[in-house]
């Protein structure tokens, strides 16, 4: 691909990546908002955070996801949004590895639900693969934050 052509194509790819990430975040946040106590229990199930902060984290998580989704949707501060996304995904990966190493049988609660599940029905490798895909999306946007139809490009436009 010539660099002139990639300059044309990359912003379109970044647009798709950006909207995809926003969609993933909204899909993750809505079930949690509908059942905040379940979100709190899902956070608790990781047995990673002290009880004092578990209800706060469980309540705030869907709001933070929606906030990040809003910035990605309009394409404002795209590079910072990509960094926040990567930090969040890093935390989730640590969580999944933690429960895997500890031998807990839990549902990740990523898209609502959560808590322990029957032994043998957890699928940590698949979760981590999914997470890896999400990290690739974030890394792409970090490398190529310029996208079509974004507030970022509107505010940098020469005219």
């Amino acid at each position: 691909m010539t660099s002139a052509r990639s300059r044309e194509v990359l912003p379109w790819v970044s647009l798709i990546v950006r909207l995809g990430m926003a969609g993933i975040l909204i899909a993750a946040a809505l079930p949690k908002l509908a059942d905040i106590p379940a979100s709190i229990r899902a956070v608790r199930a990781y047995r990673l955070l002290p009880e004092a902060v578990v209800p706060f984290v469980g309540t705030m998580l869907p709001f933070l996801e929606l906030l990040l989704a809003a910035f990605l949707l309009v394409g404002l501060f795209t590079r910072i949004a990509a960094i926040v996304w990567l930090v969040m995904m890093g935390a989730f990966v640590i969580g999944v590895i933690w429960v895997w190493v500890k031998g807990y049988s839990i549902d990740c609660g990523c898209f609502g639900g959560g808590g322990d599940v029957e032994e043998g029905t957890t699928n940590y490798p698949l979760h981590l693969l999914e997470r890896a895909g999400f990290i690739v999306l974030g890394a792409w946007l970090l490398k190529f934050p310029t996208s079509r139809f974004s507030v970022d490009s509107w505010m940098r436009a020469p005219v």
Partner: protein
Amino acid sequence: MSTPKNERAAAARAQAQAQVRAKERRTTAVIVGASVAVLAIFGAVIFFIINANKVPPLSEASAPAAADANGGIPVGSTGVVGVDVPTDAVRLDIYEDFMCPVCNQFEQLNSADLDSLREAGTIAVYYHPISILDRASNGTKYSTRAANAAATIADRAPEYYHAFSEALYASQPQENSTGLDDATIEQIALGVGVPADVASTLADGAFTKWVIAATDQGSQDGVQGTPTIMVDGTILQQSEVAYFESGALKTYLVGVADGTA
């Protein structure tokens, strides 16, 4: 090709103006973006505070008369809540959600065994009707409504708690249906003998906050799903005792009671 002086000056002026406009746009975007972020986080914190105050900790919730500090409803040897509950017997805690099909299986498989052990005074049974499957009833929160109904009966018609609980499992709705409506729950209560003046109060939600608090307490006590079985306060894993095999739980409990398990 040479450009006249005034044209070059005009171009420079236009560029300077464009830069000023771009800077203004940047400032606007930063202000709007930062305001949205701050307001959203502020709103979420307010929501958290309101939400945390809405449901009291279990110790402060108004609980069914005989319920204990862990949210357990003890059924005594005569089948009445809070009456003739042995204190020196093996303590069995059963955490169940009325929407949970696996709990229904557990009940079908073990309830006769557990009833006979309880009636013999070998075990003390504490039922925990918790609500972790509210998401599975299309927004009608069947788990919470059913658990509140059970808690209300435990408090106001304690001799019918056990029969009502079994009857709810017998007519368990499908997961991801709307669940049983309040009128049907009332009919089920009347059907097992609950007095009409109690059955008519089931929909009032007198113990809804207690159910939510007891569910959270269960989660803090290590309950991550339903059914969860605790023997003398310790969660019993299926890898230790295969309690979905007929008679396995009874054999184990008898063993614990006479010190051989």
